């Protein structure tokens, strides 16, 4: 993005009706490594590509459990993500303490969106530089939401955010009609296939740089362990979405 006039702070509109600081914040999300989510009628799966700052460092985690029935995947400034993660966890705990039941997912995303919007309407604040994919299960069903630094939120059947996420979205556009009836295994394989489209030529998926989280109607949020990831990545070679169509 080129530099613009009228972009000094959040409280200045541009003549075209844009808030450039908010748009710049959304750029920060696009710089983060890819994470995606997809859902069927019973499960939501989050897949992310983890970055390693250097050979000596560990991989940056991108998925965080908020409660048994909810988890997020982040793209953007990890520090900002930590703040939102803490907020969401606190809200879920308070809700559980008061009502002994799980925080409705849409409502919590709404709260996060409100919090984010606040930051876009003050001279002294900056927007959060992180986009979240929120996966959750509640009595209303299975949910996947995306939140934005702008304070908007959207519900999706499947979505990818972060660096080179367009490639993953293109994959989704071809195959998302199969997701509703997919089994959990098929869903994970679709997710990993989508990630594979988004990695650079010299990179490859392995159990260290990929993170997969699963949430289901009868399944509390669960990270796949290294062995399970290895197995799925092996199965990826033989995975052909076309065969799923023939099954139907």
């Amino acid at each position, binding site marked *: 993005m080129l530099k613009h006039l009228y972009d000094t702070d959040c409280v200045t509109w541009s003549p075209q009706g844009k808030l450039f600081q908010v748009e710049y914040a959304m750029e920060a999300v696009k710089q983060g490594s890819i994470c995606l989510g997809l859902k069927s009628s019973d499960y939501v799966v989050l897949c992310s590509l983890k970055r390693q700052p250097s050979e000596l460092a560990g991989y940056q985690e991108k998925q965080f459990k908020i409660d048994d029935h909810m988890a997020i995947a982040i793209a953007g400034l990890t520090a900002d993500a930590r703040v939102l993660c803490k907020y969401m966890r606190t809200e879920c705990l308070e809700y559980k*303490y*008061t*009502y*002994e*039941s799980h925080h*409705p997912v*849409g*409502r919590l995303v*709404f709260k996060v969106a409100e919090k984010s919007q606040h930051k876009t309407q003050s001279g002294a604040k900056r927007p959060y530089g992180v986009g979240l994919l929120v996966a959750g299960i*509640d*009595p*209303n069903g299975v949910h996947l939401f995306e939140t934005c630094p702008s304070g908007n939120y959207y519900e999706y059947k499947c979505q990818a955010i972060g660096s080179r996420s367009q490639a993953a979205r293109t994959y989704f556009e071809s195959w998302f009609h199969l997701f509703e009836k997919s089994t959990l295994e098929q869903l994970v394989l679709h997710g990993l296939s989508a990630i594979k489209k988004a990695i650079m030529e010299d990179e490859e998926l392995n159990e260290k740089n990929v993170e997969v989280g699963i949430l289901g109607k009868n399944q509390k949020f669960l990270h796949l362990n290294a062995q399970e990831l290895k197995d799925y990545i092996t199965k990826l070679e033989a995975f052909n979405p076309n065969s799923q169509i023939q099954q139907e």
Partner: protein
Amino acid sequence: MIFNSELSGQQQHTTSPVVTGGSVIALVYKGGVVIGTDTLCSYGSMAAFKNVEKIAQVSKNTLYVSSGEFSDFQQVVKELAKIDRSALQYDDGVHPSPRDYGNFLARLSYKKRCKINPLYLQNVIAGFHNGERYLALVDIYGTYLESNFVTTGFASYFCKAIISNYWNENCTLDQAKQVIRECFKVLFCRDCRAHDMIQLGYVDEQGVHIEQAERVETKWDFNGFKTRANEKLHTQ
């Protein structure tokens, strides 16, 4: 409210109730939950307000009744209605289940108890959600107990035997209502703060139904009363 320059403005702690509601009896039956209460609010020993509707519908499938300080009851109804309205606020159509209300009330009562300024109430929440019947008692301290039958006040002393002998959790609605009517008959005879007008309400798959107030069956034309056998003047 004490109109005394030293004490006005200081927060008072509820130490004793002023206008009180009577016993509440709630029973689970095969298709839902039925609650009975009388229609009296007493001002100490005076039967001050004789036609009070005390069964509150909190949401589509939840009923709330309590015995104790009536102004606290009214306040709690407002608090619970606030929660129900939150579905409107968040645009998500998610309504709290009866259990959510019960737990909220338990937390609220406990918080006030910790400040030594309790909601002077024995609360009963009844509901029907996802095919399951729900009935809970929340007492003045915030103790939360789910149960198949709940009694408050004097009903806890006089009516448990009747309930135990004539009710089971799979009886019909009419059987459960009869048991409640029998209980209130006994209460009217034995509880000084009871009244002979009662109101029943029940919650089932279709939702909440609150019935018209009815009079408890009483019989006064016993021969003993007519001839006043106990009141004959004794002569030496």
